[in-house]
């Protein structure tokens, strides 16, 4: 049986923007691993389908075959929409063909035998799914799905605890220098090989496990409160790392961070509060950049994903969603439930910013502008990646060009509004 992960263009993809603009949804983190890693845990033969514009870029970052129509033949297949929560996915690998549909008729999974596969159209993943819906037995599917990015953030503390138990690792394999302070049970702490924990670090596992992955470095006066995951080669610089954080690889983290997910390769070196946020890759948050994650009247937080229509998150705690390659100046203040697009450059205004900042925006003097254009932003991205020994490739640039076009309606509208405001000032 071959497992096919799919994340194809549909209206619900944008529920995961700005993070899913530049990666398939299954690359988003929740707990210790990504959604995809949880789904493929038991599979050996895996392939995937992503939106066409990101295929070349993603191909360079993964070992599995990407958008290869050849993987849709010659095998029994289990095709899985990666918005399905791995914990709820109970469909058997083998059995007769079956297509699981939501009440709206969306295909969440399709199990297709090799014999039935021969009868279906397979020009693309979309064609195959439609053909399977038409010709194979369907069943009503109530599997739990992820619907918005903030759900990952809200579930993160619980998921870290579950992932820690599933991995079954504990103990100190790296170096923890004296004097050390570990609260709670030693079985709830794992310090991987190559980790260096400096003196005067508090690891508090009294309320949840702490997993510090290979090559991470924890500087003095950092306090890590479980449940928490610190990714490979990340550095914590005297951080107040409160409960529920998943910090991906190669991040630099200081200040106060609470119940947040940071995808990887991002910097928040300095003081400033980040709470209930999801931060993409290659983000740099300037000193004292802070987000609100709770409204003063304790009402539900709303998030505007498209620049127009606020969505009630149903939660009183939601911070910022920050896309890849976005940079903030010192002192930026993000409002509760802010949407901050990818490749944006943001300067402080001294007060909380608008709750929607489009991708590729140069947010200057309180308004969205075209700024110095995308080539300047690409130049900065190139430098940031080279500092971590990674290359900005042609495939990467082509993907970002496509994202620039994809996100232009909301940005153009914000720029027009910005011009009017500028002349009124």
């Amino acid at each position, binding site marked *: 049986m071959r497992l096919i992960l799919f994340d194809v263009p549909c209206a619900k993809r944008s529920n995961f923007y700005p993070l899913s603009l530049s990666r398939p949804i299954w690359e988003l983190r929740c707990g210790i691993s990504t959604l995809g890693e949880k789904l493929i845990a038991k599979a050996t033969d895996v392939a995937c389908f992503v939106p066409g514009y990101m295929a070349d870029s993603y191909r360079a970052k993964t070992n599995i075959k990407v958008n290869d129509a050849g993987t849709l033949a010659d095998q029994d297949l289990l095709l899985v929409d990666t918005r399905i929560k791995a914990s709820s996915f109970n469909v058997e690998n083998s059995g007769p063909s079956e297509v699981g549909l939501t009440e709206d008729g969306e295909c969440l999974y399709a199990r297709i035998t090799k014999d039935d596969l021969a009868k279906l159209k397979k020009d693309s993943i979309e064609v195959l799914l439609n053909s399977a819906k038409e010709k194979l037995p369907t069943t009503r599917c109530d599997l739990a799905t992820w619907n918005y990015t903030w759900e990952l953030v809200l579930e993160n503390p619980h998921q870290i605890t579950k992932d820690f138990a599933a991995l079954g690792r504990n103990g100190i394999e790296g170096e923890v220098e004296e004097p050390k302070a570990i609260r709670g049970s030693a079985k709830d702490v794992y310090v991987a090989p190559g980790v260096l924990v400096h003196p005067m670090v508090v690891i508090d596992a009294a309320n949840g496990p702490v997993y510090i992955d290979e090559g991470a470095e924890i500087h003095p006066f950092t306090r890590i409160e479980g449940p928490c995951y610190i990714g490979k080669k990340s550095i914590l610089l005297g951080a107040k790392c409160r409960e529920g954080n998943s910090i991906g690889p190669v991040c630099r983290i200081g200040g106060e961070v609470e119940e947040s997910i940071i995808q990887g390769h991002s910097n928040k070196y300095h003081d400033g509060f980040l709470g209930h946020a999801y931060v993409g890759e290659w983000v740099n948050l300037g000193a004292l950049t802070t987000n609100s994650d709770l409204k003063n009247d304790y009402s539900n937080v709303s998030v505007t994903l498209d620049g127009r229509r606020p969505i009630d998150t149903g939660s009183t705690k939601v911070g910022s969603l920050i896309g890849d390659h976005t940079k903030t100046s010192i002192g930026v203040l993000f409002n509760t439930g802010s949407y901050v697009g990818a490749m944006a450059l943001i*300067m402080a205004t001294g007060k909380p910013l608008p709750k929607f900042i489009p991708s590729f925006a*140069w947010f*200057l*003097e309180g*308004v969205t*502008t*075209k*700024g*110095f*254009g995308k*080539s300047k932003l690409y130049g900065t991205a190139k430098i940031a990646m080279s500092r971590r020994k990674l290359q900005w490739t042609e495939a990467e640039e082509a993907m970002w060009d496509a994202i620039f076009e994809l996100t232009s309606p909301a940005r153009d509208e914000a*720029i027009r509004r*910005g*011009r*009017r405001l*500028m*002349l009124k000032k």
Partner: protein
Amino acid sequence: MDKSEIQERVIKVVCQVLNTDKDMVEPSSNFVFDLGAESTQSVQLVAAFEEEFGIEMEGEAALSVQTVGEAADFVAKYVK
């Protein structure tokens, strides 16, 4: 729109964005060295010219303009 009207409106926008008096602005005035424009203000100037004249300019070329007179010439290429 004739050249003098464009120049007059360009100067009006420059005064508004850079918060300076009309007497201080001449066609030969350099945005950075004579009028003290910061890099972020050059972005604001481009946006303000676009709003004033209802045009869309090519961003990088617009930002390479150095003087008020050059700005008027640049805007003139877009104004019908």
